[in-house]
């Protein structure tokens, strides 16, 4: 039981980091960024390249990966994002497909540079594990969790305590009002893209320490990220964390308590995504809010 809880927690941290990159771009620009999968994949390869070329430990390398991908994100915005910012309430199909195209291009880029062979990062501690509360946990998993928590704390501080963060939150909640208050939409969007890519990049880099990867590998994680945002709502960090927790709990619970084979677990996540989209499009937090209000009326 403890083992399931701890594994869930570890997984949730990574998932939240992965999902937040998607959420921030959606929140600010109302665009669903399918290229997110490609950026995560590149993050994995970036960590791999830093490790195999320079011997840089992948976790230390996060310090390099994050700003690198921030810049990459801003460039992507300048090239493509600017033209497709969603004006309306729902994101447009065109933006979805353009970013899809970007994802394909990124995939091909990776194929060309690194070939389609499976790669992995093997450090001195990859195979080691430590004991926490009587449960054996892999060292990389624990480090990933710590790095995730760190990045999410950074994000929280950024959003709550800085002017930039306030601007981002304002645009997310009400774009027009924010613009009228003097927020520079272009700049905020570029930064959102940068932040989103940075988070995708580090999520990918962290994933690289946990598993082998090919240029194709972003897709199932992208779907998990969507699942999380839909479950958790796109408005808040806590919402995303909640969604991540639910998904991780479901996966680990299934693995531990049922005989559903691991290969079918992905199917479960996708089914969950589907159900979540249909049953609560506003995310779980809104469900709770509805209960609160009903109680208040009585």
């Amino acid at each position, binding site marked *: 039981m403890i083992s399931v809880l701890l594994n869930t927690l570890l997984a949730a941290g990574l998932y939240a980091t992965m999902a937040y990159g998607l959420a921030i771009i959606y929140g600010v620009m109302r665009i669903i960024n399918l290229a997110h999968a490609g950026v995560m994949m590149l993050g994995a390869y970036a960590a791999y390249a830093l490790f195999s070329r320079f011997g840089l430990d992948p976790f230390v390398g996060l310090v390099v990966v994050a700003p690198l991908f921030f810049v990459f994100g801003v460039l992507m915005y300048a090239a493509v994002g600017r033209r497709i910012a969603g004006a309306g309430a*729902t994101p447009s*199909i065109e933006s979805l497909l*353009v970013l899809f195209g970007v994802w394909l291009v990124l*995939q*091909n880029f990776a194929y060309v540079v690194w070939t389609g062979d499976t790669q992995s990062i093997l450090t001195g501690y990859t195979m080691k594990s430590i004991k926490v509360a009587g449960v054996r946990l892999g060292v990389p998993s624990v480090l990933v969790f710590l790095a995730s928590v760190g990045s999410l704390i950074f994000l929280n501080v950024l959003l709550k305590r800085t002017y930039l963060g306030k601007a981002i939150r304002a645009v997310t909640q009400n774009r027009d009002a924010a613009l009228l208050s003097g927020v520079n939409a272009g700049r905020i969007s570029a930064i959102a893209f940068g932040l989103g890519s940075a988070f995708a990049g580090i999520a990918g880099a962290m994933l690289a320490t946990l598993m082998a990867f090919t240029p194709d590998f972003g897709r199932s994680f992208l*779907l998990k990220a*969507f699942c999380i945002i839909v479950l958790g709502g796109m408005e808040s960090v806590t919402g995303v964390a909640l969604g991540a927790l639910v998904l991780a709990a479901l996966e680990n619970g299934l693995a531990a308590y049922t005989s559903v084979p691991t290969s*079918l677990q992905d199917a479960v996540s*996708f089914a969950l995504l589907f159900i979540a989209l*249909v049953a609560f499009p506003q995310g779980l937090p809104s469900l709770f809010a509805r209960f609160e209000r009903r109680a208040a009326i009585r």
Partner: protein
Amino acid sequence: MKIAARLLWLAAAIFALTAPLFLERGPLNDLWNLAFAVILASAWNLLGGFAGQVSLGYSAFIGIGAYTTVLLSLKDWNPFVTLPLGALIAAIFSVIIGLPAFRLRGPYFTIATIGVAEAIRVTASTVEFTGGSSGLRMPADTFDFNANYFAMIGLAVVTVVIAAWVKRSAFGRALAAIRQDIEAAEAVGVNSTRFKLAAHALSAALVAIAGGLYAINFQYISPASVFDFRLSLSIVLMPIIGGVGTIAGPIFGALIVSTLQIKLLSIPALRDSFLFVYGGLLIVVMLFEPQGFVGLGRRIGRLVHA
């Protein structure tokens, strides 16, 4: 449609149907592939182009058609039964998925379809009944290229005719209204869910029959080959590049993508670049000419006439 255009389509159909008389196997294979692409693109266009609901999960229907035919052929069922049965199953499945999924608008629907198609692929790879990830093989002596070729061409013609008929009918107008403003459509009595389900089912059935024919022609299928996400992707790419929502668009798109694929594969240096090309095309089309080549053609036509 203008007389000249109509004659052109007729000539093309006649050419395709009589091709086995004078073409070698190689080019015939290319035509077969083209017909397959035309069916998929035109069928997808019914829901994706006319009604504006972009599904990235059509590989599911190819797979359903393929697996139905193979599994039942292994029990000695006749293709004349397995193909329509595959179509029926695909249509029913499309309704089951559509009922909840069509409550979603725009891109959310698209994401849901990706999820569903992936779930099916993963399930088919795991479950015993479908042969797991190693796939299934058709029984021996079911292969007949000529018969299959004619069936494929015939289906392509039928699909395009159906698309043309739908576009001009009341059904097609309803779909167009749904695409442009779904709430306004409902405000004048269009039951949008019913029409979306109908378009989805019709296109799923057509795609499934093509999938069944594919299985018979290639004699071997696996989840990786028929449920592949990249297949879903090319199905969407073709009508979009060619001109989504038109009749000629998916056909042009199929032509462009098939030709590209052949050309790219034949030049060793470019063999791995098809993702670049697909991705690049998608980006360029969406940013600069969302109406695809047909739209580009119309624009040029207006410039020329002005």
